[in-house]
Every structure is written in C-alpha cells, then in structure tokens.
C-alpha cells in the first residue's frame, strides 16, 4: 500500500470527508493504489467503526457510490447552528459568478468559466455551500446547470428574479440587440484570446486558485467543455 502513517481505512475516511458526491469503490481503490477487494474490506471496517457509539458520521451507500453524512440524530443541533445563513462579504470572484448565474440561469460551470475567463470552480462551490445557488438539471452536454435559490432572493431583498437590477447602466453596447448570454460569452472570449484578461493579470485569481483548500473538486468529467481546462493554477 502506498499510504504510509495512516492506514487505508483512515485514508478512505478522509477521501469521503472531502468529496460531497458519492464516490465509487473503484475510484477509491485507484486513488489509494490498492485493489478493489482491499478497498471494500476497508469500507466495511469504516462502516463498523462509524457504527460504534460516539461517532457523529455515518457511511452511506448512495447512487452506486459511498458517501459520509452527518448522523440523522444530530439534525436538530445542526439546524440550530446553521439556522442563520452565513453572509460574509462576497469576493469579486463570488460576486461575478453569482451575477452570471442570477442573470443567465440556468447556466453550466463551463459557461461561467468561459465568461469569466478563469475557472469558476471554487466560487461556485462556495456559493453552493452557502445556499445561494443550487444545481438544477443538466445541459445537453451533460454539464450540471446552476440556478439561484430562494435564500438568494431573500439575502438580496428581491421579490423575484424579475426584480434583478436593470443592466442598462452598466451595458457598454446597448445598441446591440444580442442576447445577454452571447454578449457575455463574446466578451469573455475576447478577454481570453487577448491573453491580457483576468486569467493573466491575476495569477491564482480564478476558481480553483482562490480558496481551493476549502473546496473540493467535483468529478472533472462533469465539465466536458474545454473552457474548464483554463485553470489558473
């Protein structure tokens, strides 16, 4: 086994802790560089250990994969702790990502990345975490689509999405009767191709670079479009 110091069960616990989506046993085996049998034995050990009293996590088999979740009996305490949404100031990356989702929804992450010119992964993850956006279906290419939530409307004091501010004040080319989406994509691509846009000016300023430790990369296969490859790392 390649992992030293901590054993396989511990490593699998850590991996499941880090991934919000269920992970298949084969993916765990690959990551730990062990056989599927060893992985399944370790998952069993983990399930047993978590089943003991004194543990607040449970191992669950979901959608063909494995996931950790909080123990259902801790939900009341969780509601009390998390009842009030956390609303720290939005970073520039978060505000841009949220604005794109708000005005264009539903929108996929690759599209957000193309508009921003940098990977939108970490900002999207934070917005998901804070409940400002949520997943809503799949694009025709299979990419997850995002939309804003009711919490978003409440936190921005909006009755509905129709109450979003008018863009005319910020619109540099109102004479163009194009769709907002097309114009955003065009501007994003122009920034990228110029090579002088955010992606270059601010190394590390994009999605994954911003606060990656606090975020977890989803399966990259979710984002089949090439723009996602524009990482600033």
């Amino acid at each position: 086994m390649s992992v030293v110091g901590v054993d396989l069960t511990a490593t699998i616990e850590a991996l499941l802790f880090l991934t919000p989506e269920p992970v298949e046993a084969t993916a765990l085996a690959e990551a730990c560089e062990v056989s599927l049998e060893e992985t399944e034995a370790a998952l069993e050990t983990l399930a047993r250990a978590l089943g003991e009293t004194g543990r607040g996590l449970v191992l669950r088999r979901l959608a063909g994969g494995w996931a950790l979740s909080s123990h259902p009996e801790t939900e009341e305490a969780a509601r009390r702790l998390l009842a009030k949404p956390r609303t720290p100031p939005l970073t520039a990356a978060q505000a841009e990502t949220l604005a794109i989702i708000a005005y264009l929804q539903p929108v996929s992450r690759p599209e957000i990345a193309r508009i921003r010119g940098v990977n939108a992964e970490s900002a999207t993850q934070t917005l998901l975490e804070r409940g400002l956006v949520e997943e809503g279906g799949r694009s025709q290419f299979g990419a997850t689509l995002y939309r804003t939530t009711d919490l978003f409307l409440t936190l921005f004091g909006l009755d509905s999405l129709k109450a979003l501010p008018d863009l005319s004040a910020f619109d540099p080319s109102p004479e163009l009767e194009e769709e907002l989406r097309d114009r955003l994509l065009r501007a994003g691509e122009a920034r990228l191709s110029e090579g002088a846009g955010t992606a270059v000016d601010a190394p590390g300023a994009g999605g994954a670079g911003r606060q990656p430790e606090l975020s977890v990369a989803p399966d990259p296969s979710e984002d089949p479009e090439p723009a996602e490859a524009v990482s600033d790392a």
Partner: protein
Amino acid sequence: MPRPGRPSPLRLVDLELDLEVFAGPFDLLLTLILREEVDLLEVDLADIVISYIDFLEARGELDLELATEFLVLIAALLELKSRLMLPGEEIEELLELAPAEAAQELLERLLDAHRYRGAAEHLGSLLSTQHGYRFRSAPLPESIRRARVPLASAVYAPARLAKAIGVLLELPAEVNVDHIPMTKVSVAERLAHVRRLLRRGSFAFDEAVADADRVTVAITIFALLELYKQGELEWTQDEPFGEITVTALAGARSDPAVLGAQRAAR
C-alpha cells in the same frame, strides 16, 4: 566612454538577476547589498535602480510618486557621500542635514523591507506546511438548507450583481498601435537632418533631437551610427550621461549629390 585599464562597473545584465522575483525596489536593493559574491564597489547602482524602475514601468506597476521618492533617497545617499569625500574644511560648509537624513531613511526602509521579507518568507513556509490539510466543502443537506430561508434577511445589495455583470460585459480595449509610428520618421530623413547640422562642423546630440519623440531619437542614433560607419563623423562624451558632441570629420562626403548616389546604390 570606457576608460582604458578600468573595468566598467557591473550593470544589471552582468548580475543575472531575475527581476520578476523582487517584491519592490527595496527588495532588489536589499538582495543586491546582501549578495556576498557581489562586491557592491563594482556595481553600477544607478544603472540597476533605473533598469528596475524601467522594468516596473513596462509591467505597469510603477507608481511615479513612489519611484520618485525612491530615487530621491538613493540620490540623497549618493550626494551625501559626495560631500563627505570633499576635503575636510568644505564638509563643514556643505554638509546639510537633509541628505544625511534621507540616507538614514533609506537605510531604515531597507531594514523594514528586510523585516517584511522575513515575515513574507515565514508566511510562505506556513502555507506550505498547511498544504496537506484539506477542508470539506459541500452544500448543506436539503432539510437544513430549507430551514434557513425564514431566518434570512436582506444583507446584500442587488446593485453588486449588476455591477459585476457590467464588468464582464466590457470588451477588452483593442490593442492601441498608435504609439508605433511605423513610417513617420525615416532614417533617410534623419540622415539629411544630421548632415545639415554637420555642415556647422559640430553639434550637440541633444540639439539634434530637441523636441523629438523616443522613436525619432532612436532613428537619429541609427543615422549617426550609419555616418560614423562611413567615417563622416565622430562623437565624444566626457562622462556618463554627459553631453554627446558630434563632430564632422575632415573630407566627409556630406553634399547632397553624394547622398543621393549612395541611396541609389542600395
């Protein structure tokens, strides 16, 4: 003009410094001063400082006010030393407090730069030790997420969203090529200009490029080099940054007919 037998001072190119890595001029100066293998006596401090400031300017990071302040400090240091090197009795007369204070300030600021550089290195190493600790990041379970809306209140301004979209809608400015005056000034034009001046026997380079833009200055130098190569003139400069005097050489072929013939021959 290089003096025979005296090695020219080390310039930036000799030092193999990667300017990218410096956090600022104080950092550069500090690195240079602390570099043991480099004898600062051999270093052309002015060249290095000016080259670095050029570099910052090229990157759009130069703050003119800061650069000026920095240069003033360096200059004060040099001025102080120059006064100190004068014979004893003159020091009393000439030594004002200002350069000494400015030099002292430069030292203090270098010391400060040293401190923050140390602190920056410390932060860098802290970050790298934290590399393996990853945090979970996942949306809350549905049941808890739903419970939060009633307790939420408006804390964000919707205008922030419109502004963010406004920024994203901006098309990047087209690359401005106006400052590249491809054919505004030709070498032939400047050749003629220099030759006109040469008829007087000699002239100052500054005079030849009075009110000219940088490209014109550069092309004027090409023209002078060309004429130097052809033996029509020589130029002298008594000291670095001093005046450059251009003198016509005897037997120079400066009549327009010859120039025309030369051009035709090319």
